[in-house]
Every structure is written in structure tokens, then in C-alpha cells.
């Protein structure tokens, strides 16, 4: 086989590869957008981590309030990631989103790093400027360029499942189990968790709220509920102080509201929880109904 012919074949294969790579990645991104609800205009956007992912069925919520609800959330994200997510949202999805449902939890201002490689969840959105920059800051050079050039490498098995769910319209929770009350109570007995308020995190939060305000959106800050034994591990006074901060913050902003869902009727009902911090299908319905009422 002559070298020039071989070389031409290789070049042809590479070009075919890049073309198909592009097409497949576009199809996959569309699936992700459908899952998050970003493929069409959204009136309400939910943002948070696994607590809101389990806490809300965005589709059902939308049916109740008769609006389009999107949920751009992912397990393990912290405030700085959520800032990138909201930036991504506002830069790319030209729509008149009216309200942001923003997840709050007691450790939102802690500086504890929940994941070393959470930036990897953003790879599919590398085409977006702020996301691209966000990843470049965190990933190694090799990693960054491989994912930049080979678009399909931005997806892994978890993302593919999300894509499938997006196309199949499967948004709800599969968590039908109820937590093991006895075991959880026993494990949490005597445990004390600190509510840490790192000033940089607070600043970051206020920056995010500023971004929401300047985009003419309202914010509903929702303190997501957790199971009673877990809730009681946080010092009552510190918790009250944290809530007061949010209430006070919202009172000074037009259209911002704080909703604390750690109320007895929810926290003490073990049937609503899958584990000590996540709601199951039943709990999801309860919370969705309550929040719908507030909107």
C-alpha cells in the first residue's frame, strides 16, 4: 500500500471521526438540555444539588403552577459551581425567567470541599464561554485539551443516562424506599455538626443574588428539609441565626423570599425521607405542593 494512499485514508477517517463526533455531541447535549428543561423557555429555574434533585419533580411543579419549570442542578455542587451554572444559564438561555428557586442548606457557607473533580460534570457544556473558562481553571492541560478536541469524550456513562432520561421524559424520582429510622437515629445519636459561615462564601452568595437581581428575576430561597435526627445535630441558635440572615437579606430585596422547610410536619415524618438528607418520592410530592403554593 502506498504511503500517500494510506495517508489519505487516515486523513479521511479522522475527518469522518470529527464530523460524527460533532453530530453525536450535539444530539447528546440536546438530551441533557431536555433533562434539565433548558431546551425550551423556562419561567422558573431550580438550582441546587442533590437535595433539590430529590426534592422537586420539576415537571409536576410546572403542571401545578401552569408554568415551565427547569432544574439546572447536580449532585455535589457547591456555591462556586452554582454561580457558574447560573452564569451559564443567563448567558445562553434567552428567556424571561421569572423566578429562581435557590437551594439553601445549613452547610452552604462552609468551606468544606465536597468533591475534588466536580468540574467534570460541566464538560458537555464546554462550548459555553464561562463554563470553558471555569473548566480550564481546574482541569489539567491534558484533560482540558482532550475533552476540548474530542467532543464525545465530554460524556460518561452517568451523563449518558441523563441524556436518555431527557429524551424519554423521565424526570421524577425513583427513590421509593424509606430511611431506616432506627438505624439513622442510632447513628446520629450524639453527633454535633457545626454551622460554619465562611465570609468568602457569604460574599459569593451575595454576588449570585446580585446576578439574579440584575437579570430581572425573583429568587425563592428554599431551605430544603432534612430528617429530624439530622436536623437536631445542628445547634439551634446557630441555625436560627442562619435563617435570620436569609430573612433579613430577602427583606432588603424586592421580590426575594426565604422559605424554611425544616418544619415539624416534614422533618419528623420519616416516611418522607430516603436518607437523612434526601426526600423520597412521597416527600418530593409534599415539598413540590408547598413550594407551588408559594409561587
Amino acid at each position, binding site marked *: 500500500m502506498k504511503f500517500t494512499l494510506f495517508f489519505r485514508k487516515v486523513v479521511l477517517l479522522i475527518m469522518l471521526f470529527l464530523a460524527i463526533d460533532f453530530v453525536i455531541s450535539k444530539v447528546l447535549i440536546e438530551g441533557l438540555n431536555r433533562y434539565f428543561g433548558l431546551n425550551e423557555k423556562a419561567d422558573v429555574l431550580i438550582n441546587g444539588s442533590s437535595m433539590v434533585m430529590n426534592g422537586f419533580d420539576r415537571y409536576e411543579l410546572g403542571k401545578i403552577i401552569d408554568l415551565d419549570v427547569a432544574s439546572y442542578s447536580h449532585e*455535589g455542587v457547591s456555591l462556586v459551581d452554582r454561580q457558574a451554572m447560573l452564569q451559564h444559564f443567563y448567558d445562553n438561555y434567552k428567556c424571561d425567567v421569572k423566578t429562581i428557586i435557590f437551594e439553601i442548606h445549613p452547610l452552604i457557607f462552609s468551606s468544606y470541599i*465536597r468533591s475534588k473533580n466536580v468540574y467534570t460534570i460541566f464538560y458537555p457544556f464546554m462550548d459555553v464561554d464561562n463554563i470553558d473558562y471555569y473548566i480550564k481553571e481546574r482541569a489539567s492541560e491534558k484533560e482540558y485539551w482532550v475533552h476540548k478536541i474530542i467532543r464525545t469524550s465530554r460524556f460518561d456513562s452517568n451523563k449518558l443516562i441523563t441524556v436518555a432520561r431527557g429524551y424519554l421524559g423521565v424526570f421524577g424520582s425513583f427513590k421509593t424506599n424509606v430511611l431506616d429510622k432506627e438505624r439513622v437515629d442510632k447513628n446520629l445519636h450524639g453527633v454535633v455538626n457545626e454551622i460554619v459561615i465562611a465570609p468568602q462564601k457569604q460574599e459569593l452568595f451575595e454576588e449570585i443574588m446580585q446576578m439574579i437581581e440584575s437579570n430581572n428575576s425573583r429568587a425563592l430561597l428554599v431551605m430544603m428539609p432534612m430528617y429530624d435526627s439530622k436536623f437536631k445535630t445542628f445547634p439551634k441558635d446557630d441555625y436560627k441565626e442562619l435563617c435570620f440572615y436569609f430573612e433579613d437579606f430577602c427583606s432588603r430585596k424586592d421580590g426575594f423570599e426565604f422559605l424554611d422547610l425544616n418544619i415539624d410536619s416534614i422533618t419528623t415524618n420519616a416516611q418522607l425521607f430516603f436518607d437523612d438528607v434526601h426526600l423520597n418520592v412521597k416527600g418530593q410530592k409534599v415539598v413540590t405542593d408547598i413550594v407551588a403554593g408559594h409561587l
Partner: protein
Amino acid sequence: MLFTSINFLLFLPLVIALYTITPAKYKWLTLLIISYVFYLNIKPIYALLTVGVTVSTYTFTRLMDNSKKDSFRKRYMMINIVLILLPLLYFKYFSVINNELLIYLGSRGFNWIFPEMKYLLPIGISYYTFMCIGYTIDVYNEEIKAEKNIGIVALFVSFFPLILSGPIERAKNMLPQFRNLKSINLLNIKQGAQLMLWGYFMKLVVADRIGMYVDVVYNNLHSESGNSILLAVILYPFQVYADLGGYSLLAIGIAKTLGIDVMHNFKRPFFAITVADFWRRWHISLIKWLTDYLYTPLSFSLRKLGIWGIIIALQLTFLISGIWHYASLSMVIWGVLQGTYLSIEAFSHKQKTEFENKYGLRNRKWYLFISMLLTFSLFAISQIVGRTDSIADSALVFTKIFSPWGNLYLDLTTLLFSIVGIVIVLCKDFVEEFYPNSIRLFSNTNILIRYSSYLSIVFLIILFGVLDGNSFIYFQF
């Protein structure tokens, strides 16, 4: 570096380029230098060992060739075998036994004379030691003339595609090729790339994916229920096949791009109809080596014992095969199990053949299918001992499988991807086994089918392969 790393994908074209520009007379030298660079990149100090084994093997094979007296030749052979076995015995077995003794005697209040020995096994030692022993014996048996160029012997020992996980090659096959290295042939590169592509698929898409399920179950034997454990037991043989088979294909494919032909290591093992058949299809290079250099001489000297001679030889051979993998009681039991399976088959061979002939069973598809299932099951059972860390854990596996079951560990994503991967591999093997040459994908004459196949596999690897090693782990508060 691992063959599955990005670094290697950049390294290989460089190797091919260097090899191409080297004049034919010195191509072996290029390969030797590259192989040592490759090895030094992993663990430099152990390169001293490969050099030592090379020098020893070269010296004693040359001495054998220059000697006429059989007793001298035999002596040279024995000396070399002992010399090069010593490091293997020391690193692999002595340190393990030593540490076990330390713990055992320590728990009884005695002091052991040696301290704890913590060594990482020198990379490739199990492979190149066996290759050199084989070469030494071949020279003694006058199957091959001793190589005069020590550089070629050094290349034989350190050849980078083979040094990590084999296949365990023979001097008769490799030395002539190393002496006459040809220039790059684009057809070889294409064929090598095809083998590598399938190897990557098996390793990254199938083996590593199944591992995600099997590892979780085996790491939590005490809390997992019998049904999850049973599922893991059934999946594990596929993981090993895809892992070792895939890696072997990578090694063979890489060698092929350089125009070097290496023996195949697997031949559609799950279509074996007896355990004997299975061992002619699984880890072929190791079994062939053990057959030629251990089983044959052993069964030959025991041939007057008839069937019992065969059985003793079988047991010993597979015992060695077991501990070749690693030094543990579990692997001893593994080896004994294989030997037992084969012995039972040897014993019942005549009656079985008569029975099969009487009813024409060998022509019945359902009979063959059941035989394959049985053979697979026997292997899967033996792999339980191979996968667990201790005898107690192996017993636990059996206990749990036969006790009442609880909830199945259902990692749907992993299971789904694993099963699809297994089906694809089995389909390919099935076609190769029963309808070779009929359905061709990679070697189809139609360029559209060829390119579609390549690209499909590439995208399957990118999308479904377990690529980044560390999956996204996060901590809940």
C-alpha cells in the same frame, strides 16, 4: 506506562517513526533502546534484574552450544534455570512466605529471623523468567541455536509490548524475527491497529465496566446478599477474559504494527465444551509453556503409571500455574481445582466418548450448548477462589449463595452497560467460532462497512469506556 493511557497513544507513533527511520541493520537496537526506555519509565532499579537475566541466559546458552558433552550442557542449563529462577522465587514467593511466617510466629510470641519484606514485584518478572527458561531448555534440546548477539537476547527479554502481561513467547518464534526486522509495512500497521482497537474495546468498555459491579460486591461480601454475589460470580469470568484477553490483543496488535508476529493468547474460551478444551483456549501462551516445559517431561517420566501418571502431572502443572499468578493459599486451591477437573475428565474420557458416540451427541447443538454452560460454570466456581482474598471469604461466597437472598444490588447503569458489552464480545466470538470468514466487519471488502465498524467501536469506547479512572465522587455532609 499502561497501554490504555493517553501517553501511550502518543508514544506509539513516535516508536513507529523512530523504527521507520532506523536502517534495517540497527532496527533491533532501536527496539531495544525503546524497550528499556519504556521499562525505566516504570521502575528503573528493576532494569538491573532484566540485564542480569539477559547476561546469564546469553552466557549459558552460548556455553551449551560450544560444548559437546551432554553432561556439561545439562549442567549449564540447570545453572541458568536456577540462577534466573532465584529472583522470581525471592520476590514472588519468599517474601510472601517470610511475611506470613513473621505474622504467624509473632502471634505466638516467637521472633522470626528475617524482617518484614515489602517489595513490589519487579515488572514482568513472571513473564521474562519463563521466556528465558523456555529458551534455555530449547537450546539444550537443540531445538534452536544459541543467539550470538547479546543485544537480540536482551530484546527478547525486554520487548516492551510483551513485558507487562505477556503473551509468554518462545525464542523460536521471536529470535528469528528480531534478527530480520523488516521495514514498516502499512498493512501491518492497519492490522495491528485493528487488533488494538478491539483490545481497547474489550478492556475499557467491557472489563473495566464489569469490574465496577464485581468490585463493589466482592468488597462488601459480608453485607451483600446471595443473589448479588451470584451475579458477580457469573460476571467475573467475563471480566477476566475481557481484561487479560483485551490486554493481550493490545500487546499483539502493538507488536504487529512493528511487523512482529506474536502468538495469540485466547481463542474464544467460552465456547469450550470440556475443561481440557477450555485450557486450550484460555491464556494459551502460559498453558502451552507449562505443557511443553513442565507437563510433557513430567508425564513422560511418569508414563509407566498410566492414567495416574497423567493425573499427577496434571495436578502438579496446574498447581504451578496457580501459584504463578500469585503466591497464596487460594491460588494453590485454584490450581488443585483445575487439576481435579481435568483429572476427572481424563478418567472418564473413554466412557464419555463411547456414550457420546452411541447417541451422536457431539452433533447435537443442545448437547454442545449444555457442555459449554457446564464448562463455564466450573470455571466460574474456580474463579471464586481466585477473586477473594482468603479462604474464609471464598467459603462466605458459597454460604451466601445458598442462604436465603435479600435485595439484589442493582446498579442498573453498570449492569446494563456490562451486559451489552458481554453480548457484543460473545457475538464476535460466536461468529469467529462457527462462521469464520462469513461475516466480516473490520476486514470487509466494502470500505463503507469497514469505516463504519472502526468508527462505531471508537465511539463506543469514548462513550461507554471507563476512561478517567476516578469517577466523580462527592461527599454528602
